[in-house]
């Protein structure tokens, strides 16, 4: 089966700064994929390349079978996107904004505009000027624009930004429904990390223009559940001993080290450390149980320094 979105070795530089380097991944229909990364990591550049706003220097991007280059519109018919902020004409009403957008696509009639307006819960104020909308309402209008032409790939930059908790839940439920029941491919970038945990099936982590993690969200979280914190008396050999034994990243944190390790591995690990003359003072499940901390761990992770 063809993926909804395939990115192959995409790279883009602005001047001497490499914004995105050699990124490859795919997004499948029927799932919500989260794109996670600190500011300036290249999330937006990546999304701009997918939506045809920016041309990749090299590599290729496909929406199903159609290639997206800067000016080939074919693939873009299937994309609904909000890039960075929901953009709208403040001097036009919400309705006219949607009408404007509908004319950029084929096959969107007034009935569909009405339908989407109700869907995002803007019916009451759709004929007011968009300039008077709150951030939350702008998000809803942005989502309405993205959904208007029934896209099969939905790309949203921080979709819950500015929404109240009820609104966030509503949008989250709706996005998951779109993916799981209507088989859309949804790609969401967000800084609300706890939100990603509840929303996404798959996770991409990007930092300094490169992908550092791709895989299912549940696997990502499972690793997190098996995270251990270890404190020892000072020992120069510890990092190498630990890293060699664990074969996973070991990260310095507070006065000790954090790494992935299942509970049943702990006795053997301790034996190993004792054998190498490391005097352990504490070992416990790591307290970084939220995705936020995991995110910081992953993105700051310079490993052992």
């Amino acid at each position: 089966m063809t993926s909804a979105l395939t990115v192959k070795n995409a790279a883009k530089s602005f001047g001497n700064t490499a914004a995105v380097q050699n990124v490859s991944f795919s997004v499948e229909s029927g799932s919500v994929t989260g794109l996670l990364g600190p500011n300036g990591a290249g999330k937006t550049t990546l999304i701009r390349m997918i939506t045809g706003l920016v041309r990749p220097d090299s590599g290729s991007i496909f929406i199903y079978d159609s290639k997206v280059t800067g000016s080939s519109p074919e693939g873009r018919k299937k994309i609904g996107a909000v890039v960075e902020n929901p953009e709208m004409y403040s001097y036009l009403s919400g309705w006219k904004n949607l009408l404007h957008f509908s004319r950029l696509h084929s096959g969107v009639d007034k009935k569909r505009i009405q339908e989407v307006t109700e869907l995002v819960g803007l019916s009451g104020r759709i004929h007011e000027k968009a300039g008077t909308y709150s951030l939350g309402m702008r998000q809803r209008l942005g989502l309405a624009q993205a959904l208007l032409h029934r896209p099969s790939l939905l790309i949203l930059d921080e979709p819950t930004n500015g929404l109240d908790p009820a609104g966030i839940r509503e949008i989250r439920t709706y996005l998951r429904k779109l993916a799981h029941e209507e088989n859309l491919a949804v790609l969401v970038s967000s800084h609300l990390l706890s939100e990603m945990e509840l929303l996404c099936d798959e996770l991409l982590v990007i930092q300094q223009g490169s992908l550092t993690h791709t895989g299912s969200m549940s696997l990502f979280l499972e690793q997190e559940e098996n995270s251990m914190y270890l404190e020892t008396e000072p020992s120069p050999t510890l990092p190498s001993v630990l890293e060699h034994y664990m074969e996973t990243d070991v990260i310095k944190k507070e006065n000790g080290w954090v790494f992935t390790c299942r509970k049943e591995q702990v006795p053997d690990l301790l034996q190993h450390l004792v054998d190498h003359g490391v005097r352990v003072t504490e070992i416990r499940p790591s307290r970084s149980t939220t995705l936020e901390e995991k995110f910081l761990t992953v993105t700051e992770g310079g490993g052992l320094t």
Partner: protein
Amino acid sequence: MINLVKNEWMKLIHRRFTWIAVALVVLAAFGTSYISNAVTEPVAPEEALSALEQQAESNEMPPENRERAEELSFYHENTGTYPLLESTHAFTYVLEGAGSLAFITMFTVIAGAAVTASEHTTGTIKLLAASPVARWKILLSKLSAIAAYGLLLTIVFALSQLGAGILFHGFSIPSPEVIQWVDGMIRAVSLPVYLGITYGLAYVEMMIFTVIAFTLGTLFKSQAPAVAFSLVLLFMGPQLVFLASAYDWAFYVLFAHTSLLTLFQGQPMIDGTSWWQSAGILFLYVSILLGTTFAVFHKRDITD
């Protein structure tokens, strides 16, 4: 494509500036006509004709002016009409009005500079560029909407001038034709055709400056410098050509050819300029400007 132009038009008519410009155009048409009516003595069509006859018989007149007056008065007497351009009547202001279209050009220059630049400023360019519409269509629809806006302002201006003429002088048509002495010959053009030609030429001139503003606004992604630069060219361009008229290259400057009305009246900026030459040079400049704009916009990375 029709849908895209509808979009641009919708955005245009929902901006306050658009209607302020229309109001100013109406106000200016009536205002200048009012002042003109107040400060100049009206000349009845019969008086204008007898003035021509006097000139024809006056010995103080230079021979070419006498010839002109003789031919014109002879033509009018034979056809039983009165000179339209020299007398005061309902069409007085609208006949002169085409020469004042530089005033309207200010508004189309502002709109033309803003039409792409403002989308970059507000970030809405992303909506357009991420849609399945090819980028050249986006630009073309914008240019079309601005051209339509210029046409609307021109028509409103002409109708207002005519309205003012009727208001101040009552409705009358002293002659169905506009009779002029051009290049040593009588030229008779029917009144509606004369209005069509003069306003049409003034409109083309207006569009050339609008295209300059559109180009600069698209290239700079910013309205203010595009407007400033275009207006400087609008008002300084002809001066520049005048100053440089001693040199051969002045002929190839755009502004030696933008003033199409003077060419129509037989007095081109540079003597001996033909219609074909002016049309060719204008076409060349406009092609270069629009070619550059479309090429740059086509290749542009949208990073606003």
